[in-house]
Each structure stands twice: as structure tokens, then as C-alpha cells.
């Protein structure tokens, strides 16, 4: 099968106003292989996928399907040719049923009537093939992201797709859900489907792919056998430079306790959660999606209300009723979703950064904006986190994911009474170069004596950066491990349903 190519692209160039999004790139997909496509944000992966699926038309280049040159005029042509894409954020109709979503656009019809029974049966067959644990008649909106993704895959299969493109499928999944996705990918491959797998996660690539193609700055860098390329070499191919230390965890002397909360309870979300953070300490919080990690910490920060619980900063109890109270107490939250929670995308970077402290800088009883000071401070902190931007007036929407995240970090740092930084999935959707920079900022903050609490579903990051790791499951803390004792397997096990009490005790 070595050179049985199902899809080949040569010399693809795509130009958008002012930018070359793809410059003479090539790609070869063998029949029945899982081929990873990697590169930093902005490397051109998404554009490339859109060229394959007929959304964009390339200015130059050729595309061959089964050896025959093809020209897609639109997404429909690609679908008919057996190419389907599953995007990171499922683009579904939440009010409709699973069946309706699967057959949207290609319903079974007879005399103009929709054949519901036949469709439901076919949907059930597809879902069974994926080993899904939900019914075709369920409403889409009631499903988890992972389940919605399965529907999207089922939809791809329903069109008899021979090539399936998965665009960052694991970005929104927890570890166990990713495992399940891997198994589905394996199974599809065994059934003869060829898969292009886009991901930022190294673990994804090692687990599912046999070959990997790397793009950088709109150029094709190379295609490698997964079992022959080392991680540092791959990172170098993606970033264009060597990253000597992905997780620059500094050796910091852990100081006294800066932050503690206990008895945090909100019925239906989390129960009796307690955590402690010391000065200079990076504490990881892991668990499956839905374990209540974000919910708990958002309640601690006053974003939502807890039924009960006590929060202490520097040993003194603080009463937090609203987000401003937490900020006043020195607790800063870096929210999970930087685009909807962390930033006002159409605003300039500077206005975003100083938003939490504008009242403190303001002059006089009428709180007149101190624009000069605001500009100075936002410039200082944006430079400190090394944001790739031209001016502080650039709209936040114009930056890449990694740089947007740096702006959110600057927005946290500008609060100079900060004592604890709570980071919720700080590197989600961030490319590897910017990831390393965010880790290095975390390390610097720990050195300066801040306490850091990091929620993350990415095991390498949790294991690489944390001094101590809490695991949560179903709204409860199921254990706390020192970094020396933690392994991926142990953490996963503690995150699973039967949070093992012996292990917890053994660890403590």
C-alpha cells in the first residue's frame, strides 16, 4: 500500500487580500492511513483543509483524487467525491434530533416525504458502528461536545466519505473522551477510511497517526514517519527554532499559604471542595470535562454564586459575592474561553488590558479615564508578555490564539494587587511556540512568589508544570498528588468515577 495515494495535492497556493495563506504546499494521503497535519496557528492548516473541501479555491496547484485531477467548485463537490470534514466546534442544529443532524441536506425521501423510520434506523446503524451511547432520536443540544463530534463523524460516514478530515477534534475533549476518539479513528482506518488528523497535541499524533506533515508560515516543511521523528525535531519543524525546555518549571522555594478555600458547595455542581495554594507554588487541577473544576473556581472568584464555602487569602477570610470582590482580594481568574470570557474582541488590546483597573487609574470624583496612564500600563504589560502586535490599538480579534491568550495574561498582570492567579485551560487551542512562552511566564510568576492554580485537561502540561496536582470527579476532589508521585495513569484513574480512597491516602 506504500504508494497507493487516495489524495494528492501539489503546488497549492492560496492568496487572501494582502497575505499568502498557502505557498506552494504539497500533501499526500495514502489509502487507509491516518495522516497528522501539524503546524502553529496561522501556518495555513485551516486554509489548506478548506481548499481540500472546496470551500476555498486555490490560485495555483493541482489536486488528484485516486490519481485523477479534480476541481471542486464548492463544498458539495467535495462531499460527492467522498471527502468530509469534522470541525473542532461541531456546526450543528442543537434543537434538532441526532438523526436530523446526520441527514441534514441528504434526507431519505420518497414522493417528497421524509422517511423518518428508515433514517432513524440508518442513524442507529451508524451510531452503533461508532459504539455511541446515545439514541438517534435525542436532541442534539442535550449531548456533550464529544457526543456531538460523534454525530458529525456519523454524518461524514452517512455520505460514504472515503476521506475524513478531523480538525482539532480533541481540543474540547477530556482525556477519556480523547481515548475513545482514538479508538474510533483506529476503527475507521481499519475499515479503509483515510483520515487527515489536525491537532496541536503531540500525544494525539503519536497515538493515532502513522505519518505527519508539517506546515509553517504557509509553507510545506516536510512529511515524516511518526515512529522515526523525535518530539524536539518535530517542534523545531513547526516552530522554526529549537525549544530547549517545553516546561520551564523553576525550582522555587514554596512559601507560606497564600490562598485557600474550603467547603465550596453548589448543589448539582460541586460539593465540599477545598484547595490550598502556597506562594511560589503551581498547583494543577485535573479531571474529566464535567468534573466541576471550572464551576468550582468560577464560584470561588464570584463569577457564579456558591451555596456555601469559605475563601482565605493570606490566612484571612475574604467574602466574595461578585467578581470585583475577588479581584480586590487579589484573586485573578484567567477564564477558560478567552474569546468570549477573556476579551472584547473588537476592542483594541490596550483597552482590553486596562479594563479591570480603569477605575483605580481614573481621576477625580467623576472617574475620568486616565488615558495616558492607561496607554503606558497596557504597553508595558503587553510588552512584558511579548505580544506579537504592532500597536496597542490593534483589535484583539486580529491576533492569533496564542497572542490573544498573552493579552489575557497581561490583563491579569496589570492588577498589581494580584496574589493568586487561577488559570483555566491556559493553553487550550494555543500553538506550541506560544504555549512554551505561556509556561515560561507561569514559571516567572511562581518565582516572583505568586500562587498559581492551573486547571488543565492536558496531562503533559499538568505533569510538566505542577508542584502539586488535585484531581476532581463529579464535583468532588478525589485526590492530591505531589509532582514526584504523579503519573498520567494514576491521575487518570483518580479522575475516573470511583475516586480511589486508598490512593488518596497513600499519596498524602
Amino acid at each position, binding site marked *: 500500500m506504500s504508494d497507493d495515494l487516495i489524495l494528492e495535492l501539489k503546488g497549492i497556493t492560496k492568496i487572501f487580500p494582502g497575505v499568502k495563506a498557502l505557498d506552494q504546499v504539497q500533501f499526500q494521503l495514502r489509502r487507509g492511513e491516518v495522516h497528522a497535519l501539524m503546524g502553529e496557528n496561522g501556518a495555513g492548516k485551516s486554509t489548506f483543509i478548506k481548499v481540500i473541501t472546496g470551500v476555498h479555491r486555490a490560485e495555483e496547484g493541482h489536486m488528484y483524487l485516486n490519481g485523477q485531477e479534480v476541481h471542486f467548485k464548492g463544498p458539495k463537490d467535495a462531499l460527492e467525491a467522498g471527502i468530509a470534514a469534522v470541525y473542532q466546534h461541531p456546526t450543528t442544529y442543537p434543537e434538532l434530533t441526532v438523526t436530523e443532524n446526520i441527514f441534514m441536506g441528504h434526507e431519505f425521501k420518497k414522493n417528497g416525504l421524509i422517511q423518518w423510520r428508515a433514517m432513524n434506523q440508518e442513524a442507529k446503524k451508524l451510531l452503533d458502528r461508532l459504539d455511541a451511547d446515545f439514541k438517534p432520536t435525542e436532541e442534539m443540544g442535550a449531548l456533550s461536545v464529544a457526543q456531538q463530534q460523534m454525530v458529525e463523524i456519523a454524518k461524514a460516514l452517512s455520505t460514504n466519505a472515503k476521506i475524513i478530515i478531523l480538525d482539532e477534534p480533541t481540543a474540547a475533549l477530556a482525556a477519556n473522551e480523547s481515548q475513545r476518539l482514538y479508538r474510533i479513528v483506529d476503527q475507521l482506518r481499519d475499515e479503509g477510511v483515510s483520515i487527515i488528523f489536525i491537532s496541536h497535541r503531540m500525544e494525539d499524533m503519536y497515538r493515532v497517526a502513522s505519518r505527519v506533515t508539517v506546515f509553517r508560515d504557509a509553507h510545506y516543511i516536510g512529511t515524516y514517519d511518526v515512529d522515526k521523528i523525535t518530539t524536539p525535531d518535530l517542534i523545531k519543524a513547526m516552530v522554526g527554532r529549537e525549544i530547549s525546555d517545553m516546561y520551564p518549571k523553576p525550582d522555587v522555594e514554596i512559601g507560606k499559604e497564600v490562598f485557600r478555600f474550603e467547603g465550596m458547595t453548589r448543589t448539582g455542581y460541586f460539593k465540599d471542595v477545598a484547595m490550598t495554594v502556597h506562594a511560589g507554588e503551581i498547583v494543577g487541577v485535573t479531571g474529566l470535562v464535567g468534573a466541576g473544576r471550572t464551576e468550582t473556581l468560577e464560584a470561588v472568584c464570584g463569577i457564579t454564586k456558591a451555596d456555601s464555602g469559605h475563601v482565605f487569602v493570606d490566612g484571612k477570610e475574604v467574602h466574595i459575592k461578585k*467578581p470585583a470582590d475577588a479581584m480586590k482580594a487579589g484573586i485573578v481568574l484567567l477564564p477558560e474561553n478567552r474569546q468570549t470570557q477573556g476579551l472584547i474582541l473588537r476592542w483594541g488590546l490596550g483597552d482590553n488590558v486596562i*479594563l479591570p483597573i480603569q477605575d483605580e487609574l481614573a481621576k477625580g470624583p467623576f472617574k475620568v479615564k486616565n488615558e495616558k496612564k492607561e496607554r503606558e500600563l497596557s504597553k508595558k504589560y503587553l510588552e512584558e508578555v511579548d*505580544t506579537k502586535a504592532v500597536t496597542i490599538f490593534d483589535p484583539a480579534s486580529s491576533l492569533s490564539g496564542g497572542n490573544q491568550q498573552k493579552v489575557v495574561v497581561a490583563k491579569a498582570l496589570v492588577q498589581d494587587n494580584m496574589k493568586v492567579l487561577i488559570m483555566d485551560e491556559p493553553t487550550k487551542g494555543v500553538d506550541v511556540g506560544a504555549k512554551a512562552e505561556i509556561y515560561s511566564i507561569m514559571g516567572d510568576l511562581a518565582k516572583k512568589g505568586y500562587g498559581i492554580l492551573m486547571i488543565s485537561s492536558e496531562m503533559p502540561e499538568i505533569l510538566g508544570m505542577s508542584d502539586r496536582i488535585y484531581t476532581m470527579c463529579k464535583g468532588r476532589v478525589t485526590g492530591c498528588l505531589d509532582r514526584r508521585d504523579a503519573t498520567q495513569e494514576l491521575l487518570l484513574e483518580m479522575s475516573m468515577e470511583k475516586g480511589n480512597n486508598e490512593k488518596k491516602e497513600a499519596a498524602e
Partner: protein
Amino acid sequence: MAGKSGREINAVPQNSVKQKILSWEGGLVIIFVAVLILGAVISPTYNFFSVFREMPKYLCEIFMMFAMGYILIIAEIDISVGAIVCLAATLGCFAGNAGAPLAGVIAVCIGVGFLAGCLNGVILTHFTELPSMIVTLGTQIIFRGIAEVSLGSGGSVSMSNSKIIMPLATMVGPFPLVFFFVAIAAVIFIFSLSRTTFGRKLYAVGSNHTAAHYAGIPVQKIRMICFVLIGTMAGVCALFYLSTTFGANTTTGQGYEMDVIAMCVFGGIATTGGKGNLIGATIAGFTIVCLRIALGQRNINTQLILVIIGLLLIISVLIPRISEVLGNRKRRAVQG
């Protein structure tokens, strides 16, 4: 302290004169001047003095326009203000007829507006999932209903002693008193929006209320303030309405909410929130007032005035779209 790469980020603001003239407000000034010229052409009596003399009856809406600007910027809407004007004017009139002095009438009008705004605000901040369009549609019917019930079968009330309210209708030189109040309101509202942190909070709430909440901005408090503010301004509007009409009836304030929304949108404020400013809205408001005076002097009937204002509104929301399309076409042509 620069980052590891030592990259510098420019923080010098750039405001060129050319940009200012080409802005939306610049265009509005041109339209405003065009309306004045048009007025002078079509009506021989249209001049500085006659415009100011006739201004009071149109000017009272402008009070609400400022607050409506805030409401639209936080991505809400209030369509109950016309009904609040009706209710406040009615009750204010009753108060005067019952023997209350000017201060009493002022208190009743503004108090009714304040309470009506509070009602809208309380409902919207306690049931945050409700859209303001629907809630204020409901309260609009309630407010107008109360007004109509209290007006009784005649459907109107007039001031038995119009002397009470006359001090508000005095002229200071060529200017009506209400003009100065509008000017003061304009300064306060424009300054708060553009120069204070409160103004930025309005834009934050309107652009992304979730991010605003995470940044520690009291989103519900801001919404409450804005709805109370617009209710209160509707009360002020009712007061000056009384000072020009000396009475109220069931159609009082009808369509005012649409007038002020139209002024705001014409002035460049987006109904989707977070965009626009009150300088544009103020120019737009005065443009419409001056246009009305001109058409009124020619005895052009009010329905036609509405058609013209409607057209202005549609054109004003289309202009950005048209320039966008033209810009794209130009860009494509360059790449050709």
C-alpha cells in the same frame, strides 16, 4: 520592562484631522447644514429666531435620546418611553390641577419617570434571560393603560391653570429655556460616555457582557442604571411637553420611542451594542428637529415628515454597507 524578544508595541494615538472629517459625525454635520439651507430655501420664515422659537415642542424628545443612546450601546432597547411620557404628563397635569405648585408638578413628572424606569430595570435585572424588547413592550402597554384609565372617558386633560408651568416655557433672549437644559444634559451625557470609566463600562457591557462580568464590571447594576436613567429622562421630557401643550391625552408620546431610536441610529449608534457615540446622535437629533421645523413651517403634514425621517434612517444604516461593498470591489479590482 520589555519582553524577552524586546519587541516594542506602539502606544502613540493617531488622530488625523482628515479622519475626523471623514468620520460619521463629519458627514452628519454636512447633512445638518444641508437641512438648514433646505429650510431657508423652502420657507421664507425659516431663520435663526423662528427655529429657536419653535424648537421647544420638538426638543423634549432629545432628553430621552441621550439615555436611549446609553441603552442601545449596552445592547438593550426600551420601547416603553413614549408611554412613560404619556403617563408622567397625565399625572403631572392632574397634580397641577389639584393645586400643586411648579415644584410639585416637576416632582410628579420626574418621579413617575423614575419609578417606571425602576420597574423596567428591576424586571430585567432579576430575570436576566428576558429580552428588553419584550419586557418594555409589556410595560409600554401597562403604562399607557394606566394613563388611559386615569384620563377617563374624555381621553384628555388640560392644565386648568397653565401659569404654573409657564416658567418652564420662558425665553432667555432668543433661546427657549429648554434649550439650555438640553445643552446641559448633552454635556453631561456626552462627557460621561466618552471620558469616564462609566462610559467605557457601557461599551464593555454592550460589546461582550460575559467578558465584562469576568473583568469585574457590575453588569446588572449598569443595566439598572441605564433603565432608570431613561425612565427619568422620559419624565423630564413629559415635563417640557406639558410646558408647550399644557395638557395630555391618550396619544401623548406616541411614537417617541421610535423617534429617539431613529435619532440614535441616524447618529451612528448600532442597535447591536457597543458602537457609536452621542456626539453623532446629538447632531442627528438636531438635524431631525430642524428638518421638522422647516417642513412644519411649510405646512407639510406630519405623515410625510415621518416618511422623510424613515428614509433618512434607512439610508443612514445602508451607507456603511454600501461603502463596505464598494471597498471590497475596489480591493478586488486592485488584485485583479
